[in-house]
């Protein structure tokens, strides 16, 4: 049962002002302790939506029920150590940390610094992301760190940096969208994944200008109904063809902003040549979108553009187009389109990716990514290394070089040349990574798996050492939302039992491993160091502190000094490239890594549901959310169901090159008949990532989650699928 909202919504003066634990919209919440809460599962905090520019007071049901995860019955409150019998047992913090220290020393002595790898998460605060990156490079001396944000934002980040010289998510505040005449939303189902966002689309919908591309008639696609806009349902894996056709029309019909192109970009001719090959009629046969629709959308965008007298236009990308083996190329094409129309770095128009995870943005800015140092610095750049090494008080030479992206890292685990120990922090790769059978196999091959988590997630259950950590309402810190806005996370209650912040754990481990200073457990102190480390970098937080954010409210980076007011609109004065210009880059469409074949003639696409979040470790522990969406299913069109001879609710067998599983069919007309959708929030037999492959985008390391060749067979026997997670027992050598 959800807690009853109090009558005095939004005005609880005694409450704690913080933000939702889930997605990158980071809706503002007020948390108020409930007297006598906690007994018999009674809520310990009430949650209210708080007025804020991004959510305007709104929350979705994940946010409203977020406090229930605090008191999940299986909440981890004591460290656990796997015994020789394979069973995890509670131990003291000293015992757990001493064990980790000894095992890490042993691995490092035997196999060198790269024997230990770290896998982080996009839900960690900036402070934790920073400390984890520093711990890896300074204490462990390992180059092998990456994070699950690789599955989220890597394609958009790579493309944005390449084309614009900057990746800040949205380089403009969200409320700006209200004034646009056209918004092109490529592969995002934000009405389900971040519902309060929809409020910002009211204006463009009232003007008929919302364009959504999605192979499904998703909740977001439905926002285009009744004259509010246009829904294009391309063949999965052909988003780049749609974009090439839009580029073609904009160029062929000379709808571009010539003045802007001349003043602010380079590369027009090469782009022109790559788009020339994709006239709409050719694109139509590949992407299944009528040529006339492609022309219509190109003209809608152009007419909304400032150079043609429009009120403004935006191009926004989501995981639907980015989670592809040509994800970087696809985002590049989206940016090319925005540049041709003169939208980027201009008030009232723009391009931006919609970040998924709560702190996917901050995580990649401050050190969780294999090739980056805090402040969005490059680990390969000597000046960047020197700056960060000075802040860390170490020799630049001692810093390791770049590591490898997440999928490659997971693939190396436990192999002769790969790491033999892994520390997982804020991630559940056994559910969220592609080809999870392989991930399980690699984790089992490790000598040591240390997991920090709040609940026994599927990955946590495989750990040799399981360390219980605090949740959002139990800690201080900052997050950087989808618009590059740095916001404060604040403590509303004490963590239960022995749960500790990751900052404390890293301090303890660092001290045990011979680095007694430089790892404060206070988030504000970590932030102050982060600010210094980021000074002069692309993501410059040097003018920020917890104290300033508390006093003045949230701010968009860069904030290069204590008097700097922050940068709500980035890129207005130029692009941070060598010549100050944005790059128009040619792109080429390639077939997916796993194209359809005679025995796998359908497309599998995966995605999220409104009621669940990421690997579901949190939301599957909220009874009302679990009741709403208890298990995985395969969504398919009635014509496909008819072909298979099955009815709604009957089981089907899904098979790909990576694996197979059985789930019930959910029959709906809101999907292409050549496509099957599966949500990826579920473990065990319902895990969509049993089916996805581990091919990645060569430029960004993004897995191609969004299109896998699929065979579907009826499986009418009523299979009792155990939804219990089987704990794989691993012996400790």
């Amino acid at each position, binding site marked *: 049962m959800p807690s009853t909202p109090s009558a005095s919504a939004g005005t609880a003066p005694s409450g704690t002002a913080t933000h939702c634990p889930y997605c990158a919209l980071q809706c503002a919440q007020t948390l108020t302790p409930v007297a006598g809460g906690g007994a018999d599962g009674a809520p310990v905090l009430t949650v209210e939506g708080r007025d804020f520019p991004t959510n305007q007071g709104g929350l*979705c049901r994940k946010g409203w029920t977020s406090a229930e995860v605090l008191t999940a019955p299986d909440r981890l409150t004591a460290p656990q150590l796997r015994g020789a019998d394979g069973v995890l047992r509670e131990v003291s913090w000293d015992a757990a940390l001493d064990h980790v220290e000894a095992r890490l020393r042993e691995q490092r002595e035997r196999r060198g610094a790269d024997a230990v790898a770290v896998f982080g998460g996009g839900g960690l605060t900036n402070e934790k992301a920073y400390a984890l990156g520093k711990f890896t490079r300074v204490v462990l001396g390992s180059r092998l760190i990456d994070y699950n944000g690789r599955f989220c934002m890597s394609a958009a980040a790579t493309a944005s940096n390449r084309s614009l010289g900057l990746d800040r998510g949205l380089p403009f505040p969200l409320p700006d969208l209200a004034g646009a005449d056209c918004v092109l939303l490529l592969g995002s189902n934000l009405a389900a994944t971040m519902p309060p966002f929809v409020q910002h689309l009211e204006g463009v919908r009232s003007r008929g200008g919302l364009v959504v591309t999605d192979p499904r008639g998703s909740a977001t696609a439905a926002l285009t109904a*009744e004259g509010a806009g246009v829904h294009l349902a391309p063949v999965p894996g052909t988003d780049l063809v749609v974009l090439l056709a839009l580029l073609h029309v904009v160029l*062929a019909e*000379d709808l571009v902003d010539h003045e802007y192109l001349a003043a602010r970009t380079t590369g027009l001719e090469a782009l022109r040549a790559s788009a020339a090959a994709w006239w709409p009629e050719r694109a139509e046969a*590949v992407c299944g979108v009528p040529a006339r629709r492609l022309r219509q959308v190109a003209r809608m965008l152009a007419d909304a553009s400032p150079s043609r007298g429009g009120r403004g236009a935006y191009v926004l990308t989501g995981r639907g187009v980015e989670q592809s083996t040509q994800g970087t190329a696809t985002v590049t094409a989206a940016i090319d389109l925005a540049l041709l129309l003169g939208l980027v770095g201009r008030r009232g128009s723009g391009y931006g990716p919609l970040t998924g995870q709560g702190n996917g943005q901050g995580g990649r800015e401050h050190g969780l990514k294999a090739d980056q140092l805090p402040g969005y610095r490059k680990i390969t750049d000597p000046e960047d290394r020197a700056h960060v090494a000075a802040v860390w008080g170490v020799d630049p030479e001692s810093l390791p070089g770049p590591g490898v992206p997440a999928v490659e890292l997971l693939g190396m685990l436990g192999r002769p040349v790969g790491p033999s120990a892994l520390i997982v922090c804020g991630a559940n790769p056994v559910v969220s990574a592609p080809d999870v059978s392989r991930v399980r196999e690699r984790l089992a091959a490790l000598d040591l798996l240390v997991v920090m988590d709040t609940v026994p997630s599927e990955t946590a259950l495989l750990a040799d050492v399981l360390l219980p950590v605090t949740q959002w309402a139990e800690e201080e810190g900052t997050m950087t939302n989808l618009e590059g806005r740095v916001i404060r996370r604040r403590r509303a209650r004490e963590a239960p039992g022995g749960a500790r912040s990751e900052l404390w754990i890293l301090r303890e481990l660092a001290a045990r491993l011979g680095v007694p200073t430089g790892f404060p457990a206070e988030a504000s102190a970590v932030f102050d160091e982060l600010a210094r480390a980021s000074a002069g970098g692309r993501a410059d937080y040097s003018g920020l502190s917890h104290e300033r954010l508390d006093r003045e409210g949230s701010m968009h980076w860069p904030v290069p000094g204590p008097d700097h007011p922050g940068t709500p609109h980035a890129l207005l004065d130029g692009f941070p490239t060598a010549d100050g210009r944005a790059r128009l880059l040619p792109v080429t469409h390639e077939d997916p890594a796993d194209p359809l074949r005679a025995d796998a003639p359908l497309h599998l696409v995966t995605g999220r549901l409104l009621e669940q979040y990421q690997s579901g470790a949190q939301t599957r522990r909220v009874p009302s959310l679990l009741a709403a969406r208890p298990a995985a299913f395969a969504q398919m*069109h009635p014509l496909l169901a008819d072909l298979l001879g099955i009815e709604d609710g009957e089981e089907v067998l899904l098979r790909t090159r990576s694996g197979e599983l059985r789930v019930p069919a959910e029959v709906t007309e809101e999907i292409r008949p050549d496509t099957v959708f599966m949500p990826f929030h579920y473990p065990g037999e319902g895990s969509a990532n049993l089916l996805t492959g581990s091919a990645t985008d060569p430029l960004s390391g993004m897995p191609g989650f969004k299109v896998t060749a699929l065979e579907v067979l009826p499986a009418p026997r009523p299979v009792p699928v155990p939804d219990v997670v089987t704990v794989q027992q691993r012996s400790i050598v």
Partner: protein
Amino acid sequence: MRIVVIGHGMVGSRVAADLAAADPGARLTVLGQEDHDPYNRVQLSSVVAGKADPAALALEQVGPERARVLRGVRAVRIDRASHLVHDELGEAHPYDRLVLATGSAARIPDVPGLRAPGGAAEESPLVDGVSPLKDLDDAERILRRCDGGGEVVVLGAGVLGIEVATGLAGRGARVTLVHHRERLMERQLDRDASEIVHGALETLGITVVTSASATGVDAPEGRLETVHLSDGSARPADLLVLCTGTVPQTALAEAAGLECGAGVLVGEDLACPGDPDVFAIGDCAQPPEGASGLVAQGWEQARRLVESWRPREEESRAPGPPRGTGGDLVRVKAVGLALVTMGRIERPGPGLHAPRSVRLADPSGGRFTEVVVHEGRLVAATIVGDEDAAAELSAAFTLRTPVPRDPVHLLARPLAARAAAPAASAADMAEDDVLCQCNGVTKGTVCAAVAGGCGSTAEVSRATRAGTGCGTCRSRIQELLDASRDREPAPV
């Protein structure tokens, strides 16, 4: 490896650029007879229609650092014995492998009066006002002659003829489309489909004359005035556009002793049977499966050739078979007329495993669809007047995705996800229907809150959380509030 490519059109430029990218060690020379950079010839009809800017046609090409590209230089002789290509400037280009991508030329029909008097018949220029549409110069000539009006005769109602006729009609010209056969696009369309296309063209203001050919042209003072047709009529004309097919450019190959049929004969490996070092791709080639005259086939051949030559550990291997079936998909780019054909429609006989063919003919609606399904896949289709079906069936044909058990669904409903349905009004919802998706709140819960005294959407939201997510259901909450007020007289 020294590679010479003859031809720098759509296929020649593609194979050169891809070869340069695939094999950094290759030494490339490209001979192109046109002075232009490579451009998108397929779009010429769109240029004529005023839908594409000629400046936007430039195609990707190999950079000067990777290849020597000679523009406006014609190859005049291939010396296979010494592996040399001689150009018109007297230079000889040595090759290890030679790729012929010489394309095709417009076929000029033998009509009296078409060419200026004097000179040899094949050489003398066409009279002013007569043009094929094969290159940018042709397009510019046509545009100069037909600038938003005038009398135009288009000879030949194949794909190009229909595109040109509709394009010029769209610019305000009075167009007569003349076709020598009874059926338009007779290679692709049957009689029913042709009649529906015929009707659609007339709706666009085009006069269509079938079973007729041009018998003569009057061009006093070298300038076109009249086109005489075999039905005895004479059409005044400012412009005659010849869309009477193409002829593969095989002269060089023939002179070099390579075997030619309609085009340069090549095997599945795209090599000439008599010379393993000479290859032909694109419109000039005649592969075992036949030439389609479509650029998709040429580009696919370029891809296969480059793929087979890519440097790799093992021996370079022969090109794989053609991929996909999209090669023979014909999409007419005609404004106001959706027309797509794919595969080959053959009249299937009876039998359990025979292909199934179903059709929908709607002459007064200007609509025609025929699909042929075999072994669960779409193997051929013709679509007139239904652009959604055209797009969806094209994708199904290209990707070979499974089709519905009963092929009639392919006619009766579009294959793509149907347009997103608008939300139902609150009045149409049942009590236990979810009204607020973001928070999973039913209509019943909202009604109860209204009955319990909530007087505004904000109050309902506070009581139930409905409307606190995306906010799109607030109008339905308001509807329920209004309905409640209508039922109860307002307190005085």
